[in-house]
């Protein structure tokens, strides 16, 4: 951040600082109050819950069990005997982690790249309104209807397979019924659905790129590509920070597409962290373990966020 504090006697500065803090809090208050009561508080409760055994009955039935929930979901006893390979191939948590990380690692770059490309293409061309609307449409449509449509598109003799076969593919099975392809059907639907959404964010951000800067770059003789690399992209950095964090988080939390299209199957091939949480919480009513799984998700996402946050600050301080 580049805000300079006004120079002056130290005492005056600290009083000013206090005043500034008060002003800042007054800006935060309306949102923070609602946020703290309705989101933060329950989240803190959920964090604590990961150390308890609770079946969803009266709160008085909470039983403190320490780290036992973690020991159970990691299946530490078996994993200690059989090693990590066992963890990632046999233990529910390991499989869910593996699937979720794979899904995230593929979906995030694919979505960001296509969203950015679409936004650049649609920033200032004729007919942009129509295209933008079309690409945003998938996000607008209701999930059930969309997933049912896609399952049908991806069936054995469905249009997608026919198209791929024309291109020389030999795959002839419904995507969602194939343990290798099922996760790709989830990825496909996710990218298709979200690319327009993040395109909108990029489009909005592109409006904030000062035209003076772009024109200055052109005067300097920079080509379009260089202009994009050296002017547009750095200007979009806060947005890219936002988009990548939001994407990573929402990918780690993928649930609805999976629940409707594959229900985690076939077998455990599309079991994700949140599918697993849902299963523990609502079919097996073990809320303590469900919370423990969420904590793992939280830690992963927080680590990624802090790293990105740091690098963002470093860049903006440059």
């Amino acid at each position: 951040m580049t805000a300079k504090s006004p120079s002056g006697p130290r005492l005056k500065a600290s009083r000013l600082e206090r005043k500034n803090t008060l002003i800042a809090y007054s800006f935060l208050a309306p949102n923070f109050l609602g946020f703290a009561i309705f989101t933060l508080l329950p989240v803190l409760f959920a964090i604590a819950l990961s150390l308890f055994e609770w079946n969803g009955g009266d709160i008085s039935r909470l039983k403190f069990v320490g780290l036992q929930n973690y020991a159970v979901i990691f299946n530490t006893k078996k994993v200690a005997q059989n090693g990590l390979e066992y963890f990632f191939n046999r233990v529910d948590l390991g499989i869910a982690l593996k699937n979720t990380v794979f899904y995230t690692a593929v979906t995030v770059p694919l979505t960001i790249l296509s969203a950015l490309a679409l936004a650049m293409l649609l920033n200032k061309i004729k007919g942009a309104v129509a295209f933008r609307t079309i690409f945003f449409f998938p996000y607008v449509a209701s999930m059930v209807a969309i997933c049912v449509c896609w399952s049908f598109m991806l069936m054995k003799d469905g249009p997608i397979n026919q198209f791929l076969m024309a291109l020389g593919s030999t795959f002839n099975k419904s995507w969602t019924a194939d343990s290798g392809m099922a996760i790709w059907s989830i990825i496909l639907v996710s990218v298709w659905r979200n690319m327009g959404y993040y395109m909108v964010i990029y489009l909005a951000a592109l409006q904030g790129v000062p035209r003076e800067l772009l024109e200055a770059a052109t005067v300097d003789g920079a080509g379009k590509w260089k202009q994009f690399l050296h002017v547009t992209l750095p200007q979009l950095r806060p947005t890219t920070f936002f988009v990548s964090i939001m994407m990573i988080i929402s990918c780690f939390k993928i649930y609805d597409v999976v629940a409707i299209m594959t229900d985690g199957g076939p077998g455990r091939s599309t079991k994700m962290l949140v599918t697993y949480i849902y299963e523990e919480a609502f079919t097996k009513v073990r809320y303590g373990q469900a919370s423990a799984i969420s904590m793992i998700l939280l830690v992963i996402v927080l680590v990624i966020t802090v790293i990105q946050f740091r690098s963002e600050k470093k860049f903006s301080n440059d």
Partner: protein
Amino acid sequence: MDQPLTQRAIHRDHPALLIAARVIIYLLLIALALFTLIPFVWMISSSLKLDREVFSYPMKWIPETFRWENYSLIWQKVPLLTYFKNTAFIAIVVTLLQTLTSSFAAYAFAKLQFRGRDVLFLCYIATIAVPWQAYMLPQFIMMRSIGLYDTLWAMVVLQAFSAFGVFLMRQFYQSIPTELCEAARLDGLSEYGIWARIMLPLSTAAIATLVIFTFVGTWNDYMGPMIYLTRDQNKTIQVGLRRFIQENSSDYHLIMAASVVSLIPVSVVFLALQRYFIEGIATSGLKG
């Protein structure tokens, strides 16, 4: 809008190249647009069929007979109008509150120095990272105890103060040069004045984005209303849609028809707001 300098420059040097590039870009976009629209075509076609035709195999793109009555049936079979009203109420109130409070809070995060700022901000992001399924139950117990269960206001307070909006607005404010705020401070403008007179007008595109996202997100939310709204007069469209899938029968043709109808309001909001992506020339007021 006048053509940017770059295009004029290229135009002068390689006119043929430019035209070829344009054609390729449009072809690409059209192909992608078709790919995007295919499921919608199927959705509309299914909405005009009988239920058993929806899944007839191999798939038929054009229904044997167009059953337009499906579109009147959905209003008779379930109280769709009530669902529409409820959903609209929630979506509008949430959008309003969300946009207002989060653009306010985002200003503090983006442009003010105060103690605990980064920690507080990480708190916001951290809650996004906890899946709702994990804290749904404590949240539900709390909402019940304050008497909001099975009221539309439950959905309002749950969604109006999400961390998402604050995060989004903060990022947009960050790309607005801090020098602008400082100049305004020197001119004697209070922080509230800066927010109202400088930040808000400069972030129309961002606000339009937030409005669209919040509206669409609330409109299409399923899990929240499913848990919190119980009586029929309080249900929303997405919950209502599922009433066509029952234990012993399913009416997918009606689901598709209702989905098509529920697309309309959200599309209207998007179309109405998307001009702000062209108009919001955020830097026009910026001179150094």
